[in-house]
């Protein structure tokens, strides 16, 4: 049998690699900034002698893999990429190692991290993940179309203005939609947008006793506004549009406005990909005068699972990838516009960055306008802006997202969607023991 030598060979190879110099296994998502980090990482190996083993996966696959590993104490990963949703939940479960050494390192300067982001990644006052890049959401709009409609975008518009502008900019014969918004079902897709939007309408997911609130006038007003806006000024087939689909529509000049992640700013202003690169303006996400804006907060961050055997080296890597020198390294190699945004105050004070990224100030203002500790107008028992930081949220919000997506597609009415969402959420929250 020829197979034995092959297997023995593979086995020795596996043993050999695990026995040689220290190797970190890093799990990450396939986003532009992460890919760049991977490309620049040989500099870290050169500096420290620590080898890196990269696992790049699509967001949902990564979440499933990493959760399996961490829940079973598998120890496959030393550094994992997680978001602001996972960080507090996993920290509470005792799955993550607090980044104490990093927080104490004066050179790392943890106070330089933007306060809302730091807040989102902490649990009981301790930092459990270091932000690699942060984002909020804001309005990207076409200056030329706005002018043509005879309107001027204020820096901080209201939903009323957005509705008026979207309808005025729409020109179905020229295939121009006044506004493009997410419609694809998913807790990180349409529900991220709608939850953030609902905050500005005074709505909330749960009251102080964890009772779902979809039967309130605030949620009805949120969904009605969204549906009528999309019916009058949205693209056709919007219920299957997520980030990428809307990005393409906007880049090809088919959207007057698009409210989405601030990281999109560098894509829509890049003349290589975008036909409207020189016509894009930015504004804060809309509000209703209630003191909360409809923008979210997210930070892809690096954390160390408790099961890692190389915690010290892992913290060393996290330091390298999220400190000020890394930003300078990216700037030197790829230019300031490509520096991972949204993590450090010092970056936004840097004149080189301000010159290279016209959207810098608006991004910073958007991030600072989000408050994960007090996300809503009325008090809530949870943290998180466009999500509720409890483990059950992903499942519940995906169900609700499907109902709202169906309402957008015209399959059910807004009232039915809200009533069914209320029932489903109540059932799941009762089952999970929140509602006694």
């Amino acid at each position, binding site marked *: 049998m020829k197979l034995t030598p092959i297997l023995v060979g*593979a086995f020795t190879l596996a043993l050999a690699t695990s026995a040689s110099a220290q190797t970190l296994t890093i799990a990450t998502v396939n*986003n532009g900034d992460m890919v760049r980090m991977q490309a620049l990482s040989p500099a870290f190996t050169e500096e420290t002698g620590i080898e890196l*083993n990269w*696992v790049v996966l699509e967001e949902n696959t990564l979440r499933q893999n990493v959760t399996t590993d961490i829940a*079973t104490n598998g120890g496959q990963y030393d550094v994992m990429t997680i978001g602001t949703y996972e960080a507090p939940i996993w920290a509470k479960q005792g799955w993550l190692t607090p980044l104490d050494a990093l927080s104490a390192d004066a050179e790392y300067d943890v106070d330089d991290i933007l306060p809302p982001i730091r807040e989102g990644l902490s649990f009981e006052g301790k930092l459990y993940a270091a932000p690699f890049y942060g984002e909020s959401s804001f309005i990207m709009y076409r200056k030329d179309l706005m002018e043509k409609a005879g309107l001027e975008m204020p820096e901080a518009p209201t939903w009323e203005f957005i509705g008026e502008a979207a309808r005025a900019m729409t020109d179905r014969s020229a295939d121009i939609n006044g506004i493009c918004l997410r419609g694809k079902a998913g807790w990180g897709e349409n529900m991220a947008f709608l939850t953030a939007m609902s905050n500005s309408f005074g709505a909330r997911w749960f009251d102080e006793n964890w009772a779902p609130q979809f039967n309130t006038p605030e949620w009805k007003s949120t969904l009605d506004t969204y549906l009528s806006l999309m019916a009058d000024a949205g693209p056709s087939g919007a219920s299957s549009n997520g980030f990428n689909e809307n990005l393409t529509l906007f880049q090809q000049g088919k959207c007057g406005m698009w409210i989405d992640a601030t990281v999109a700013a560098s894509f829509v202003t890049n003349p290589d990909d975008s036909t409207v690169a020189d016509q894009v303006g930015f504004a804060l996400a809309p509000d209703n005068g209630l003191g909360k804006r409809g923008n979210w907060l997210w930070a892809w961050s690096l954390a160390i699972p408790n099961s890692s055997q190389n915690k010290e080296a892992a913290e060393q890597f996290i330091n390298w990838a999220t400190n000020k020198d890394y930003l300078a390294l990216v700037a030197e190699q790829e230019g300031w516009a490509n520096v991972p945004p949204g993590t450090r105050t010092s970056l936004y004070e840097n004149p080189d960055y301000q010159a290279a990224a016209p959207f810098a100030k608006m991004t910073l203002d958007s991030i600072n306008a989000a408050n994960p500790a007090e996300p809503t107008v009325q008090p809530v028992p949870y943290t998180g802006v466009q999500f509720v930081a409890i483990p059950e949220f992903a499942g519940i919000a995906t169900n609700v997202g499907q109902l709202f997506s169906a309402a957008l597609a015209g399959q059910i009415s807004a009232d039915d969607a809200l009533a069914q969402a209320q029932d489903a959420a109540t059932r799941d929250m009762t089952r999970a023991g929140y509602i006694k």
Partner: protein
Amino acid sequence: MARNVPASTRIGFTALAWIIALILFSPILWVLLTAFKTEAEAIANTPTFFPQNFTLENFGAVQARSDYIKHATNSIIVSVGSTLIGLVIGIPAAWAMAFAPTKRTKDVLMWMLSTKMMPAVGVLIPIYLIFRDLRLLDTVHGLTIIMTLINLPIIIWMLYTYFKEIPVDILEASRMDGAELWNEIVHVLVPMAVPGIASTLLLNVILAWNEAFWTITLTSGRAGTLTAFISSFSSPQGLFLAKLSAASLLAIAPILLMGWFSQKQLVRGLTFGAVK
């Protein structure tokens, strides 16, 4: 002797066959074309059929980010290795069931098939814990073992069906001539069942090659196969469609070529026993 069919009917059916074949092939064709487009063109709202700016940069970008050769080697070891081990276990097992059945043989066959009825994720946690404790996570041999276990029921079922077609008299005749059990299987049964064994082998190599769930869950960096390689190029946020297509093309190319060259064997094996 072909039947007398009017020319119009023949042309009609030929056209229909071509249309169906093209529909089945279209996703692969689309991947093939997209792999040579720029990212902007790949995701364009008014899609282009042929690449307007023919480019090879996607392949360069894919190789720069990920090691194709390493993943391909893992794929070959895991798929061929698990299939060969499966055959070594499966041939004697199928022989016993086909030529020396007991009253429980049918139950055993059903039981083996029943292991395929549960969704894989149902046993994820136990398997993961076993792999963790045996230090098999992210190893090529660990993956080979799990792939063997997954495909063994299919291997035994396929071989059992082929062996049933072989007249037991021939095996008895060899026994009369004094053949030992080992010789009976290796020198009499196997040569007669070559088409069946070959198609079992090919099908299982393909199944193991395309397996994604266990491969992605049980590996992290060293033992990843080509399915893990593809999945690292998919992203809900950002433009990676052309690179994803290039990665997919690279991943399916070896198995596509293998299928192409062995299609005669494969078809013969799959229809084995249809004509007596």
